């Protein structure tokens, strides 16, 4: 039995094996219910950032950098998260650079074994007035690539699996367009100018987000890297909370905010935005994070990437998955885009542990 068949077999069998008050769900139903903080038949497994690895590229015969720029390859590689790994969602946007490429940032597309990156040391904007969204922004090849990949995935998997798109938030676009240091200095020196820039950049987030929903995305990841490694929780409140509330109002699909690093000091603010979920990093413990959001937003996460998924084995992965399950984290997955050299065995351990944990609880319920 190939991995794809094995994954599908496991999913269908599990529904029969683990009785609960919730009827068996498809992966898509499970993810969307969890994002709405509704009951689920079991905890969904998802990574709203990226599950691409070199090993999966080999299996799918779809490689970086082309899989970031060609819709068929993008869709084929993305589908492996469901067909090979048994995750409940598919995320075709592996990187964070599609919009920036379409806006004219200088790019380094790299090779099979490395991520594409924006050359932030060669910024394209100095002033908010420089921010111009090209009329043909949605027709740029790195935008249409994502839209076509979503359409392909929707046709093939749309009834069964949650197709998650990705639109970058304005804070991250600020790093790309202005350069990290100039943008952060502007935020300190001239708050009015910074707000002006954010207001202009948010239109990019909305345009790309809405286009992905029209293409068939069930939900969107919204990375906006106001991380505790760079800025304070107060910064999030001052610059981004209201803006994120506006994004929820204008983008008609569940939004999953993603911010790397230490974020507990801003999770309370994030929980007030109306975002469906927050994809959180292993620098925050599951216990303190659940307490910080107080049931106001779903959490997705937070299996450590560099030290666990990349460097250790299934036993250590299992420990982290169980810790998240025990405190009630609503969707389980890696903390961020996984390292490209992550062993498949470690990724397979995530859905396996989730299913086993639910099976054991079901058996326990039956006995009592």
């Amino acid at each position, binding site marked *: 039995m190939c991995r794809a068949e094995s994954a599908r077999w496991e999913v269908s069998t599990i529904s029969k094996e683990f009785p609960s008050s919730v009827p068996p769900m498809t992966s898509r139903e499970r993810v969307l219910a969890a994002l709405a903080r509704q009951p689920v038949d079991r905890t969904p497994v998802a990574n709203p950032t990226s599950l691409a690895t070199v090993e999966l590229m080999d299996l799918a015969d779809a490689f970086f950098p082309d899989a970031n720029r060609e819709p068929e390859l993008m869709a084929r590689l993305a589908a492996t998260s469901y067909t090979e790994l048994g995750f409940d969602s598919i995320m075709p946007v592996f990187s964070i650079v599609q919009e920036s490429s379409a806006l004219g940032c200088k790019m380094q597309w790299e090779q099979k074994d490395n991520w594409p990156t924006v050359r932030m040391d060669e910024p394209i904007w100095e002033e908010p007035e420089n921010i111009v969204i090209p009329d043909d922004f949605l027709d740029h090849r790195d935008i249409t690539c994502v839209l076509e990949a979503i359409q392909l995935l929707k046709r093939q998997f749309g009834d069964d699996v949650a197709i998650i798109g990705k639109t970058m938030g304005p804070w991250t676009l600020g790093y790309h367009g202005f350069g990290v240091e100039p943008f952060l*200095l502007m935020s300190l020196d001239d708050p009015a100018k910074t707000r002006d820039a954010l207001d202009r950049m948010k239109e990019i987030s909305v345009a790309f987000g809405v286009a992905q929903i029209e293409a068939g995305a069930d939900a969107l990841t919204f990375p906006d890297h106001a991380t505790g490694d760079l800025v304070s929780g107060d910064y999030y409140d001052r610059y981004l909370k209201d803006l994120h509330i506006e994004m929820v109002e204008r983008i008609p699909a569940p939004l999953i905010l993603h911010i790397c690093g230490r974020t507990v000091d801003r999770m309370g603010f994030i929980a007030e935005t109306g975002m469906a979920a927050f994809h959180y990093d292993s620098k925050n413990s599951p216990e303190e994070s659940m307490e910080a959001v107080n049931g106001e937003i779903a959490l997705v996460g937070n299996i450590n990437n*560099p030290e666990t998924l990349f460097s250790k084995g299934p036993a250590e992965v299992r420990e982290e998955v169980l810790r998240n399950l025990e405190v009630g984290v609503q969707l389980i997955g890696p903390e961020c885009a996984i390292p490209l050299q992550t062993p498949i065995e470690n990724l397979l351990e995530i859905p396996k542990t989730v299913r086993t944990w639910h099976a054991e609880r079901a058996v326990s319920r039956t006995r009592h």
Partner: protein
Amino acid sequence: MATISDIHNATLRDEIEEFLERPEEIERNIELFSRARLLMQDIAVAVIEGDDGQVDRLTRGALDQGIEALEVMDDGLIAGMGIVGIKFRENFLFVPEVLACARAMKAGMAHIEPILMESGVKPIGTVIMGTVKGDLHDIGKNLCIMMLRGAGFVVVDIGVDRSPDEFIDAVEEQGARLLGMSALLTTTMPNMGTTIEAFIDAGLRDDVQIMVGGAPVTQEFADDMGADGYGKDALDCVALAKQLLTDDRV
């Protein structure tokens, strides 16, 4: 032994009382600022507040009064940046504020550096800093550079996406005994090991102390690659650089 009341500047007293927690750091800063001239205390406060215009004005004023450039640098600029580093480590300050403080320090150093160069005063050390091949991220490296400069090191920043040969060339050209490598991506971390191997192949490994850092890098990874040290943050990088230089001299 000096006490906090021996420091004339009220802002400095508040900074030490409010933000410093480690006894050895409190003691060191009280000792330093209690013997520093009032003008040096004012310069330190201007650095802490990230006021580049004030640092520029006060530094020029101090030099015009005949105060030695070395004293202005050590007791004013570096002392102020020392407090900034501690506040950053303890999350009282974040990157935008640190960038402003570093900009303020730079405004002062613009007056100091030419004088020191002319008088032949040697820095405590020269460090080559760069991000490894395939990695374009530089904010972590740049924070380390700010703190190293803030501690009195001369830093040669060779930029991002640098090959092993570019690191080797920089070390040879500058005659540097210290090298720092940064990586933000797990995909580029192994290039730190590749670079270290290149130094071995070139017969230069014993001539340079190599330190590494970056979000996914760990002490274990640094040890496996054969680095001489790992810094988990910018302040750690400064302590490590000082330690490696001391080891180098033994």
